């Protein structure tokens, strides 16, 4: 545990207000190799993220929502889950999640450049939107509309439960999404039916420009769990191991038939909301001061070095491998063509079905 990092939110709310999960078994303890692998993914994510941001600034990528600051939370969560078993209803800030689930930097870059062969929507949608082939991994992000994935994830879990399949569905969302009515309805429904859902909130304390205090009159999104009689766990999202443990416990609960859990990973958004945003308009400089000092990537590096799992050579290898992968992916993505409109009318309706114009 990166215990020297403390959550910026009120630690009191790190309780489990109702339907306590305290008796649930946690996930297996992570060893140094596990953490090393998580570190590798975080580094790759950061390098790729920086590249995409840079390409946007050069006019080569249309729009980017950066995951910088969210990497530890995302990699920690996936570590506690099973990519083949579980289902991932993500939102747009899940670059690290995607990498951790095996989507390649090239595939992701095809999305950011809106190129042919983009694996989620064929570049019909924004980067990271659409769905990955189900046989490969059940990653879904149907739309840019905030919070719609929450009731959908609940329906997905309902279907699994009806068929007796033991799987966890994770609904990813931000603090901003917690204000939407659909979030309330989703949590309420899942709680009533004890569905195997993890509501995974990445609280970076901003909905674009709107700070937490103007979004809610409480300190922690996890508090909301009380309203549904489910466990709510606030965890430091800069600590990948703490997130792993919280999500692991929630997954165990879900698989045991004990219903949903609300996990809130408190993180920071290191960059503006998206590349279209200018956060100097609204974000006080103090707000970011010191926050980058808590950056989970160097912190994890330090921890691994302290335990002897990482030395200069290995760290160098990890970082230059990431650079190399991203460089190659950039080149390949830039060389890829834009999709031609030859299948423009495909998949409006099922092939051959009434209304199909393909």
């Amino acid at each position, binding site marked *: 545990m990166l215990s020297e990092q403390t959550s910026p939110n009120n630690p009191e709310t790190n309780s489990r207000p109702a339907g306590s999960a305290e008796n649930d078994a946690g996930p297996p303890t992570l060893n140094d190799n596990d953490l090393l692998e998580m570190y590798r993914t975080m580094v790759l994510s950061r390098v790729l993220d920086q590249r995409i941001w840079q390409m946007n600034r050069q006019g080569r990528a249309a729009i980017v929502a950066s995951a910088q600051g969210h990497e530890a939370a995302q990699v920690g969560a996936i570590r506690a889950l099973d990519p083949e078993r579980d*289902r991932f209803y993500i939102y747009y800030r899940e670059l690290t999640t995607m990498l951790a689930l095996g989507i390649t930097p090239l595939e992701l870059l095809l999305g950011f450049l809106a190129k042919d062969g983009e694996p*989620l*929507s*064929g570049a*019909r*949608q924004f980067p990271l*939107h*659409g*769905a*990955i*082939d*189900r046989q490969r991994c059940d990653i*879904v992000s*149907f*739309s840019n*509309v905030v919070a*719609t994935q*929450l*009731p*959908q*994830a*609940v*329906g*997905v*879990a*309902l*279907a*699994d439960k*009806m*068929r007796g399949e033991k799987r966890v569905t994770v609904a990813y969302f931000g603090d901003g999404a917690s204000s939407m*009515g*659909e979030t309330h*309805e*989703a949590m*309420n*429904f899942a709680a*009533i039916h004890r569905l195997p859902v993890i509501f995974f909130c990445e609280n970076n304390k901003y909905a674009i420009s709107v700070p937490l205090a103007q979004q809610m009159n409480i300190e922690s999104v996890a508090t909301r769990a009380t309203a549904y009689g489910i466990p709510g766990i606030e965890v430091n999202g800069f600590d990948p191991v703490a997130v792993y443990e919280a999500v692991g416990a929630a997954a165990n609960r879900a698989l045991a038939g004990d219903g949903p859990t609300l996990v809130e990973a408190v993180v920071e958004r290191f960059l503006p909301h998206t590349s279209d945003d200018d956060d100097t308009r609204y974000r006080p400089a103090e707000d970011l001061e010191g926050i980058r000092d808590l950056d989970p990537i160097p912190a994890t590096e330090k921890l691994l070095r302290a335990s002897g799992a990482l030395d200069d050579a290995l760290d160098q290898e990890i970082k230059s491998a990431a650079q190399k992968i991203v460089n190659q992916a950039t080149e390949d993505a830039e060389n890829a063509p834009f999709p031609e409109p030859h*299948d423009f009318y*495909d*998949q*409006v*309706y*099922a092939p051959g*079905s*009434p*209304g199909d114009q393909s």
Partner: protein
Amino acid sequence: MAEMTVIEAVREALREEMERDPAVFTLGEDIGARGGVFLATEGLIEQFGAERVIDTPLAEASIGGVALGAAVNGMRPVAEIEFGDFIWPAVNQVIGEAARVRYGTQGRRSAPLVLRVPYGGGVRGGLFHSQSIEVAFAHQPGLKVIAPSTPYDAKGLLKSAVRDDDPVIFFEHKRTYRLVKGDVPNGDYTIPIGQADVKRAGSDMTVVSYGLVMHYCLEAAAALAEEGVDVEVVDLRTLRPLDTDTVLESVRKTSKAMVVHEDTKAIGIGGEIAAVIADEAFEDLDAPVKRVAGPEVPAMPFSPLLEAEFMPSAEKIATAMRELAAY
């Protein structure tokens, strides 16, 4: 064959589909022990249990969203919206999301859900239990929209809707539920989505309609027949995709056309049909395409004389037919 009402036909279709396919289930407010406020699901919870007949909280956005999620994950949910007037909280999931799932994933996912929506007036429902709300849905590519008028069509089309691989909004006119009776085959049959039906053949003019007022069109046509005017009545049955072929074929024969619906007139189904006719049958038309529709007020009022003022009646339709015949 058995004579039954529209609500009985809906119930039978639902029951048979649930018997046929274990992936079919239904969810909505009061559909369990209560059997639905219109009794469309009466007896289903006894037969299929509370796992497949789910009483939801009073929360339409989650009814839409949960149905969508279950559909994407291999089930065939049939969600009931208690009254069409209360569907708005669900449209973010239906018009916003479900309609774009297939297109937006390039076919990697689909959303085979059915939303059953009792709609329409003439039931003393007032401003919030009478609305025609089909336009917002029928306008949206990616959705299929059905609005049957008879028990036969209701059963056959609901079965097609359940088996369809795309999201289907299935509008059931509340006033037809118990008013309209007709012969319905026992057991399985389907009616294809997207095909209009000539409910009355005629040679002097084409009247295009759907839902409750389609029956008023038939009444009016009967009255006109006695006056020597032979009216063809086309029942659209599906509002998306529209079967303009059947409509145009009829108009090419009759050379005069009228569209009748209960919903308010402007920017609606009638405008589309009239525009298609006026465009594609331009050379065949002997008269302008007329529309009879609900008046431009926000919805159907409660008090009986006010309600009657709103509703296109057989008399109002017959009057318009006479005018068109005389053009």
